[in-house]
């Protein structure tokens, strides 16, 4: 190593070290005097290193959108709409069948005698959107089924839509720096939500999962001025439609808003009403919703809402035709209020009910964000209190520093002067790995720290390999100056082989593993790449300096 290349190498090392120090301890803005104080460095370090939830505390939720249910509901609604369309056109259709078993989704309309299948199909498609469905017309039935590619697309859309809705809900709720993204394979329909600092995710979970499924439906009842037709039990309501529920009717509970509690304090049991299905308009047509106080009383809030133009148009036409009839405001399959239609209404409505301010606010919020396309189930929920995370860091750090101190002491004892060389390389390795973690914006988790530790272990090993080799050469009678380079040359092959093997397996872990495994793989790969630099390039340069001062040393402190 001549003195010129020695200088170049030294400059490279200095530059990299300074860059590393800046990345780990420096601010991401113009530095000020405060950045050079102990507190300033600490603050910058905390800002730069992105700690995982397991270390800084927070909630980690994995949820799944029930896309099967979404397709099932879609199929059932289309079947109902198709049947209604055919019957409205006075076509001889005897009934409908629905198959929705998780892989097949199909609608079949059974034709009466003398029915023209093609004419039925024609009529139905005018009213119902069945463009993506495969049509099959036979002598006594018309059927539509969803091809599996379309199923996949629709499911994916449902998840994307759910993601948007959840995002607007948590943003409105004010969760700080949430992570919200698809999780796992696309077909698994999973969503990951991480909320740093949120220790008890109960309210957020309720908000995310809230149904807030609003429908305005026509009540089957004689028109005003007769009172609205209610039934004392579900069975009685069913009896009124002939015992079995036809596809275009629903029986729903109706809790009277202003009903007085019974003498013993219990709420009176709900009555039941029969409504027409499908709904006149539903929550997807909402433009806005807000919580308003009816009387200024804290426990007496209600929700007022307005429709988008298309919904308002639909609602206006329908109310115009149904003046005097009763209409139900249905929230989550419960009739919140029933009122007769006095005049044509276009775009305003309200949900009365006994809401407190916070439940009314949450409900208005979820109504504004729209209803979820399908139900959500939680697969995984982890919360880490900030103190628990801090304790993990402290304990892990204490033990790691203890281990490191021991390693340093041993290297200095066992390899003497050369041990200093190893310690410099080791500390540089840790600094640069930290800098790389910051540069790539990787999140440091507990498994990530494990990867870091393995990286340090292999950095120590690289030094040991070189030193043992140099010792061997010296023992074999080789002059010191030559023995050093031989030791490096030979050990280099071993170090590269060992590091590359581990890098390959870590890359595979990164590609195929899930969250925690990835965290491990990332820090390990970074540490190993840096190891090749510190254990060989840096260590070699230090020996180069040593030899440049005394080209033919009699002995080496190793």
């Amino acid at each position, binding site marked *: 190593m001549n003195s010129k290349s020695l200088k170049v190498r030294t400059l490279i090392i200095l530059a990299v070290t300074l860059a590393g120090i800046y990345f780990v301890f420096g601010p991401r803005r113009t530095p000020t005097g405060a950045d050079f104080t102990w507190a300033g460095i600490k603050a910058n370090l905390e800002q730069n290193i992105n700690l995982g939830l397991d270390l800084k505390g927070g909630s980690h939720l994995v949820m*799944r959108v*029930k896309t099967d249910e979404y397709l099932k509901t879609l199929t059932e609604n289309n079947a109902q709409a198709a049947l209604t369309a055919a019957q409205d056109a006075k076509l001889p259709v005897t009934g409908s069948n629905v198959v929705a078993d998780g892989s097949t989704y199909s609608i079949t309309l059974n034709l009466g005698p003398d029915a023209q299948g093609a004419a039925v199909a024609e009529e139905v498609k005018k009213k119902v959107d069945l463009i993506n469905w495969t049509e099959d017309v036979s002598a006594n039935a018309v059927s539509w089924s969803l091809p599996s590619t379309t199923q996949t697309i629709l499911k994916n859309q449902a998840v994307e839509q759910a993601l948007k809705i959840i995002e607007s809900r948590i943003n409105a709720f004010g969760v700080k720096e949430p992570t919200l993204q698809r999780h796992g394979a696309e077909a698994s329909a999973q969503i990951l939500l991480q909320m740093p600092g949120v220790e008890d995710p109960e309210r957020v*979970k*309720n908000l*995310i999962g*809230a149904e807030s*499924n609003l429908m305005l439906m026509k009540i089957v009842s004689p028109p005003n001025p007769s009172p609205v037709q209610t039934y004392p039990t579900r069975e009685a309501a069913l009896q009124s439609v002939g015992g079995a529920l036809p596809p275009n009717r629903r029986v729903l509970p109706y809790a009277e808003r202003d009903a007085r509690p019974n003498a013993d304090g219990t709420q009176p049991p709900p009555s039941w009403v029969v409504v027409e299905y499908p709904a006149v308009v*539903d929550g*997807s047509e909402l433009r806005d919703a807000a919580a308003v106080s009816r009387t200024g009383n804290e426990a007496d809030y209600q929700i007022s809402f307005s429709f988008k133009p298309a919904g308002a148009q639909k609602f206006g036409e329908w109310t115009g035709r149904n003046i005097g009839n009763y209409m139900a405001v249905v929230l*989550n*399959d419960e009739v919140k209020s029933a009122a007769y239609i006095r005049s044509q209404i276009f775009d305003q409505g309200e949900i009365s009910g006994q809401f407190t301010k916070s439940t009314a606010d949450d409900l208005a919020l979820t109504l504004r964000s729209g*209803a*979820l*396309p*399908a*139900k*959500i*189930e*939680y*697969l995984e*929920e*982890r*919360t880490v209190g900030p*103190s*628990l995370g801090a304790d993990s860091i*402290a304990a*892990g750090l*204490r*033990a*790691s520093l203890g*281990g*490191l101190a*021991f390693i340093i002491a041993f290297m200095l*004892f066992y390899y003497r002067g050369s041990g200093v060389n190893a310690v410099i390389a080791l500390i540089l390795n840790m600094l640069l790995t930290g800098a790389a973690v910051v540069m790539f914006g990787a999140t440091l988790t507990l*498994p990530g720290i*494990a*990867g870091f*530790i393995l990286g340090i*272990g292999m950095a120590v090993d690289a030094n040991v390999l070189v030193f*043992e080799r140099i*010792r*061997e*050469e010296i023992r*074999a*009678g*080789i002059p010191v100056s030559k023995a050093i380079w031989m030791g490096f040359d*030979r050990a280099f092959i*071993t170090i590269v*082989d060992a590091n590359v093997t*581990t890098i390959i*397996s*870590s890359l*595979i*872990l990164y590609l*195929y*593993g*899930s969250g*925690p495994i990835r965290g*491990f793989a990332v820090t390990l790969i970074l540490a190993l790449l840096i190891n090749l630099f510190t254990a060989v390039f840096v260590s070699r340069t230090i020996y180069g300096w040593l030899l440049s001062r005394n080209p033919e040393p009699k002995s080496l402190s*190793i």
Partner: protein
Amino acid sequence: MFQFFTELKVDWMGLRKPFVFISIAILLAGLISAAGRQLTDGGTDAFNLGVDFQGGTVLTVKFREKPTADDVRSALNSVGINESVIQDSTDKPDEKLIKIPIIEGQATATPAPAPDANAQPQGGTTGGTQVEVGRAKVKSALDTFGKEAAADQTLEQDATAAYKIVGTDSVGPVAGEQLRDAAVIATLLGMIGILLFIAFRYDWTYAAGAVIAVFHDVLVTLAFFTVFQWEINLSVLAAMLTLVGFSVNDSIVIFDRIRENMNLNRTASLYDLTNRSINQTMSRTVVTNGLLFLAVLALVLFGGEVLRTFSLALLVGSIVGTYSTIAIASPIALWWQSKIGRAEMKDVTAEKTSGEKLASASRRSVTRRPVTR
């Protein structure tokens, strides 16, 4: 210079039978423990799987006045949780870990509507998968000891509170399976990657030796986990991956030395070269792995509860990984070479070469040739 081994002359390959015997004995012990636990009626499962892989909920609860495990258990019984594991935190005297299995059914859900009335077009939350009810149920049980500290306050700040849930891990059956599968698949693919790379750089026989040694290490570590019923969770998985890395690293160091010695000394038998390579690198093996062992021991002793199983797995792994390179990886490579006629399983050159000066560091270095197989 101070140094552990300089002139080691141990016939490691001659010890292969006792080595294999030891390995098989440990693996058998693990197998018997696993099978015994699995088959005994009312016994525990083969492995003490944490909630990460099995599903369930574990809560870390900090108490002002810690109740006994029996008190907690009877409180849990009163809310219908009959199976629970209650542990004291080993490093924090005021904390307990409460582990409950998956709660089936819809504990907090409203009764499901009749099937003919539930075809609503859009939906919201499910009533209660276990992930949702676990924490709430335990909380309602713990409320018999007093109230929980408010959400934004620590137990110290809220003087009226009796306890505080400081951590929850709740994993549903689907997620548990997913994590398990992802871990196993990634690890197996990783090993295939190692196999291919070593086969490319060295030889299939060495690749097989290294990978079998890695399998051996993982199995032996698992044997310890079933015998002592240490809990297997995600951090143990990270530790397993770490020890796979160390084990392969160790094997490579020795293989590399064998390859080098082979190129320098084409007359010596592979049996002899393998022994000599192990002996030559013994100093490095002891230093590196000794340091690793001591560093991990520090983690076991002072690393705290969260890192405990992680460091225990690493502790076992650091010993097993070193051992397997000498006792498993090298003999298997040698055995395979003997099967294809490139070596013999005994020390044929012992007498012939004893007087010869072989593989001195100087000759090796000067006559280094390109790597060939």
